[in-house]
């Protein structure tokens, strides 16, 4: 990528997403909206560059798609699990805090993990201590701690590590 392109498009992916967002919002593919969306995409990228966001790269797109499907499946599964807890009369869920030691340090991988953990009902991301690499979670149905640690470590973290690091 030449120096000029890099100056105009510091975050090409972000600019493309802004263009797509603009076209979706206007539900149009007319030349006028394409031009306007491109201007917004470039301007958004330039405005963001002053925030000095760390650059990240998706190293394995195929795995990212696979990860998305795993998460979708887990969201449906945990929706059913939490519904069952709520609807079972007299059932008191044994909820509690859980600390998981993470190996990933990539900001984007951590951000995605935060979205995933929060989007699967039953787990909430509380805090990540970057100095110690410890993630504090709250789990609604904390019957088996190892099972939840295994889910975070082996199901999500391993894949995110391969995708981003």
């Amino acid at each position, binding site marked *: 990528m030449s120096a000029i392109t890099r100056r105009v498009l510091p975050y090409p992916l972000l600019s493309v997403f802004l263009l797509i967002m603009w076209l*979706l*919002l206007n539900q149009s593919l007319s030349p006028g909206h394409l031009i306007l969306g491109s201007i917004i995409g470039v301007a958004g990228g330039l405005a963001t560059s002053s925030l000095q966001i760390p650059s990240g790269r998706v190293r394995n797109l195929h795995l990212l798609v696979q990860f998305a499907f795993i998460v979708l499946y887990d*969201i449906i599964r945990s929706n059913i699990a939490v*519904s069952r807890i*709520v609807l079972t009369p007299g059932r008191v869920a044994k*909820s509690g805090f859980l*600390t998981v030691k993470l190996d990933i340090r990539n900001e984007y991988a951590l951000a995605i993990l935060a979205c995933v953990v929060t*989007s699967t009902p039953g787990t909430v991301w*509380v*805090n990540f201590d970057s100095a110690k690499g410890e993630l504090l979670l709250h789990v609604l149905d904390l019957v088996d701690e190892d099972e939840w640690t295994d889910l975070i470590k082996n199901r999500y973290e391993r894949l995110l590590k391969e995708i981003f690091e």
Partner: protein
Amino acid sequence: MMEVSPTLPAWVAIVTSILVLLGAALTLIGTIGLVRLNNFYSRVHPPTLGTTLGIGCVLLASMLYFSVVKQRLVVHEVLIAIFVTITTPVTLMLLVSAALRRDWAIGDPSVPVPPGLPEEAERPEPLPESDQPTS
């Protein structure tokens, strides 16, 4: 903007209704859970039913219905899903951190040290029973 089309195929009407009802039911279960569970940290969980699969079903229904009625692909609902997914973690993290600080400050022994405080920070003395806030 409600458009009722006389030519709406039966299967679209049926699938749309099922999706809308499923989404509404999940959101309702979430709110029931909010009332029924017994402490703040547990109560944070059930409403996420509405912001994940609940909203997903309603958005799918909307995409299907309007794509058929308007005779073209309507997918801008995807944006709602993306924005809800990337913004809810921020709200939940702040809410839970605030609750942790409150419970820690009143000396609740069951909560971990809240973010931002040193590990060895001295735990405050528990309040007398009569002053405990009701959560």
